[in-house]
């Protein structure tokens, strides 16, 4: 499996897709930071935001700016872009035939692709943290950075892993079922818009399941970016829900991958 990951990382470094996604992420941070600095508003305030992050205000310190940039409503869409860049290229170019005619243990291939996606998300996360930290310090100063802050940042990255994996595996699963990047993109975006209303309605039916409100992707990423502000049980149940989603989607995706005929 490591050979497959190594090969995919080699390809991604040679191609422009992942580099462009990283540049887009950096661009959004720069644009938002400068807008916030100049006028107290920016792309962040008009972009895709979850209900959880609506109350955020204009940052006053460098650390606050980094935290707000971590509460990035665009992130699930960037994950989709990674999915399309990594596995979608295999389908659009037809190279999946070359891989699967050699590696007949397809579950390894599926797992390797998911891990490569996860590594891309981590690379994106780290790049965005470094860029927003540099920009935050330049625009809003050193204030707010402390040992506790960095521990929370690390915790945030670790807690994001089930969300990364869930979103990646959902994207891969859609690709494997449809075999087409275009259908995957549409289905993924429709799903992103539909899930919040689904979780809200489920919460209406089961008021005790309060954590359901924060299980939609956008809210979940927002919660993780400020996990210390929420009751631990609620965050835990939300993560548990996502781990269950991960297990279910990966299992369905792998089964499908194992048995599907490759055109």
């Amino acid at each position, binding site marked *: 499996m490591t*050979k*497959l990951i*190594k*090969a995919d990382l*080699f*390809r991604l470094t*040679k*191609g*422009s897709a992942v580099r462009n996604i990283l540049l887009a992420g950096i661009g959004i941070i720069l644009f938002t930071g400068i807008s916030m600095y100049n006028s107290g508003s920016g792309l962040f305030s008009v972009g895709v935001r979850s209900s959880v992050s609506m109350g955020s205000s204009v940052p006053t310190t460098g650390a606050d700016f980094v935290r707000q940039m971590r509460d990035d409503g665009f992130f699930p869409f960037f994950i989709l872009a990674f999915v399309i860049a990594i596995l979608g*290229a295999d389908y659009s*170019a*037809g*190279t999946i*035939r*070359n*891989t*699967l*005619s*050699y*590696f*007949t*243990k397809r579950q390894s291939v599926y797992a390797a692709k998911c891990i490569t996606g996860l590594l891309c998300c981590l690379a994106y996360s780290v790049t965005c943290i470094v860029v927003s930290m540099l920009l935050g310090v330049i625009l809003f100063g050193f204030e707010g950075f402390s040992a506790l802050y960095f521990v929370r940042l690390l915790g945030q990255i670790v807690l994001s892993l089930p969300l990364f994996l869930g979103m990646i595996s959902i994207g891969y699963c859609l690709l494997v079922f449809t075999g087409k990047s275009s259908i995957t993109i549409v289905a993924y975006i429709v799903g992103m818009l539909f899930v919040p209303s689904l979780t809200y309605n489920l919460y209406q039916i089961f008021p005790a399941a309060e954590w359901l409100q924060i299980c939609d992707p956008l809210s979940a990423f927002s919660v993780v970016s400020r996990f210390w502000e929420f009751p631990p049980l609620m965050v835990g149940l939300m993560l548990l829900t996502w781990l269950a989603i991960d297990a279910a989607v990966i299992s369905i995706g792998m089964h499908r991958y194992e*048995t599907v*005929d*490759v055109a």
Partner: protein
Amino acid sequence: MSESVLNTTRLTKLYGSRVVVENINMTIKRGEIYGFIGKNGAGKTTLLRMVTSLVRPSGGAIELFGSSDAKDLQNARTRIGAMIETPAFFPKLTARDNLEYYRLQRGLPDAGEIDRILHSVNLTETGRKPYHHFSLGMKQRLGLALAIMGNPEFLVLDEPINGLDPTGMVEFRNIIHRLHRENNITLLISSHILSELAQVATKYGIIHNGRLLKEFTQTELEQQTRGYILVKVNNAPMAGCIIREQLDTNQFEVCSQEEIRLFTFFDDPSVVTSLLSANGLRVYSSNEVKVNLEDYFISVIEAA
């Protein structure tokens, strides 16, 4: 007896209720170049996909290098190189980067492998040119380069010369000959271009409507396609009697009242025409008729 590289038993593939490949029993022995012939939609590609595990069989069994259980088959498949339909590579990567991707993926330790295979298919001069700027011939050769990566013992090539110009075809044929000669690679090649296939294959299989109609060797093909001398006379049955009695041969066929086909006397047909004239028969014409693989293929399909 040489080792069997591929052996299929009652191999079947259904898409819904539609039978695409039906009960195919095929054997390819080590060192053979198996030409797989069939019309569009006959089931060639589906069968090759099943051999390379891209498509799951609905029934029957595949045995590769003597292994037929699932785990051994997984290992056996790493000894196969394949090019199924049009070669597929990442369009913005160069030939070398595309091959490097697969070298890393397959864990081949020798980085010099890429130079070797690029040299084998005459693609050493592509430099920084991305794959999507390659000509069709270059794409086909890069596909072959991937197929021979890691020195496979068995190559599966699906329509490898489709769309190539005459020079490309000759070049491709020479590469195939060299690979077979130098590495004793066993090949399974499907193609529509039967004249080209006839120049490389040592054994053939004809598939039609998902069924394998016939398998035959190059020697058998030569016998079937040796041609004949078509003699037109005023009384073909009597001509047959004269030839049998006076020339002591049964290598002829009376086709109609006026036509007789001779499968001998290619060097000097006048022996026959003179004899028939001397026996009072009127000989209208005698022509040598050549039969090629295309004609034979059509005759087998029509007979089915």
